[in-house]
């Protein structure tokens, strides 16, 4: 064998032209097949699928949502009081938490690791810059830039996803189109469809117009104890329980008395540089940006040791949220570089609204260890729950028009706490 390996002369000769041509055809065929892997549905939108190297497919085969809930359960267990300071200090040492800035500072007051993970910061621990856009969270800037003309956002350099897939697609037209959308997705059955139609809501009413529903016996809600009435309470009751793809009016927690609330709303309106009668354009996905404007994106990654509550990045009004139930892959930079469509596959809550320059959207994306997303002003929202998963790309939508009459949404000041991520 050694002799054959060393003494056999190498004889080079040209390949026949046909073999070269065949090779080129094979390469072209492979390229074309890869391009065709982008599946388009009947409405011309890309169908989101798991794409990436083999490690990604192995991850995709794991019951990550179950792992996440189990992880949440384990971390909600109460720890012995004597163990808490040692355990949390060890965790802080391992993940780089700064214990000097947490409130309360006494580690024994955190019953479980889950509670410690969702810790608060001392007042004034984070000075707020006077810039148009400030960071909504502690973390690492993964990526930022301008959204390209074909509405694709860069996940990392070279890997993109469509803005529609991240935020959801707004169907144009009448209330029928909203309900029709549900029927198309086979989520709401005929009876539920009839119930929704029986109330005869217009689209404006359904997404937060000023008039009341047109059903018999309906009464206009009145103001009670300083709480702002929600004209869509009736709608919310009739649409309960939530179904995927439905649009409901979220019940919003009132912020103190009416005077405080008005002062808060006015502050946001002044920050936004607008009068209460806001122009309502450009708030639905930002496809029609104002002349001279562009769409921008920024991705912030929160590592396990970071403070996990998120705050408002600017003065803006949240008009609606769309809850997409999805996978719970890790969103670490390692996975983000390998798993295409990561942010549109994972469970997420798209909060959509407007700021002084037009459309503004903020999307907290869940992950395996932090599958639960809380939004302080949305008591209806439940994430990472057991049950049947809806088809990818569908979402439950809630509107916040009842939160502020003058701003037609949930007003937020820069750095105001909005919610956070919880373990599991």
């Amino acid at each position: 064998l050694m002799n054959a390996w060393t003494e056999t002369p190498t004889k080079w000769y040209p390949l026949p032209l046909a073999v070269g041509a065949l090779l080129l055809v094979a390469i072209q065929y492979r390229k074309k097949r890869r391009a065709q892997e982008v599946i388009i549905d009947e409405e011309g939108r890309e169908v989101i699928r798991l794409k990436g190297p083999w490690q990604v497919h192995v991850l995709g085969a794991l019951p990550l949502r179950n792992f996440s809930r189990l992880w949440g359960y384990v971390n909600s267990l109460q720890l012995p009081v004597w163990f808490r300071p040692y355990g949390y200090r060890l965790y802080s040492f391992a993940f780089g938490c700064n214990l000097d800035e947490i409130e309360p500072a006494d580690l024994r007051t955190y019953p479980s690791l889950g509670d410690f993970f969702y810790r608060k910061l001392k007042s004034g621990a984070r000075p707020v810059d006077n810039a148009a856009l400030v960071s909504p969270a502690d973390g690492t800037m993964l990526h930022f830039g301008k959204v390209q003309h074909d509405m694709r956002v860069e996940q990392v350099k070279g890997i993109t996803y469509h803005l529609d897939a991240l935020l959801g697609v707004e169907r144009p037209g009448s209330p029928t189109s909203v309900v029709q959308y549900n029927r198309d997705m086979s989520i709401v059955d005929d009876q539920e469809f009839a119930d929704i139609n029986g109330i005869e809501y217009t689209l404006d009413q359904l997404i937060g117009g000023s008039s009341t529903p047109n059903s018999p016996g309906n009464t206009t809600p009145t103001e009670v104890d300083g709480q702002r009435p929600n004209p869509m309470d009736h709608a919310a009751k009739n649409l309960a329980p939530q179904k995927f793809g439905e649009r409901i009016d979220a019940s919003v927690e009132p912020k103190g008395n009416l005077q405080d609330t008005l002062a808060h709303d006015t502050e946001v309106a002044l920050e936004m540089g607008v009068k209460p009668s806001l122009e309502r354009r450009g708030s639905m996905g930002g496809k029609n940006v104002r002349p001279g404007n562009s769409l921008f994106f920024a991705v912030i990654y929160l590592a396990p040791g970071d403070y996990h509550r998120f705050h408002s990045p600017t003065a803006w009004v949240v008009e609606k949220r769309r809850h997409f139930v999805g996978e719970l892959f890790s969103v670490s930079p390692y996975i983000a570089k390998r798993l295409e469509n990561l942010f549109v596959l994972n469970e997420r809550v798209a909060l959509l609204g407007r700021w002084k320059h037009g459309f503004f959207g903020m999307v907290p994306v869940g992950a395996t260890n932090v599958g639960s997303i809380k939004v302080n002003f949305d008591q209806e929202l439940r994430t990472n729950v057991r049950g049947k998963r809806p088809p990818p790309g569908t979402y439950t939508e809630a509107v916040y028009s009842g939160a502020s009459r003058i701003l037609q949404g949930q007003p937020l000041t820069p750095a105001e706490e909005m919610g956070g991520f919880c373990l599991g």
Partner: protein
Amino acid sequence: STIVLVFEAPSDFEFTVHPSQKVKVGQRLGDV
């Protein structure tokens, strides 16, 4: 966990951070 911001702004909007930079709540990310 991750937070994605998508927003409309004047075309001369500029980010004042760089990729992989650590940021804190309230820190300037960008301005017009």
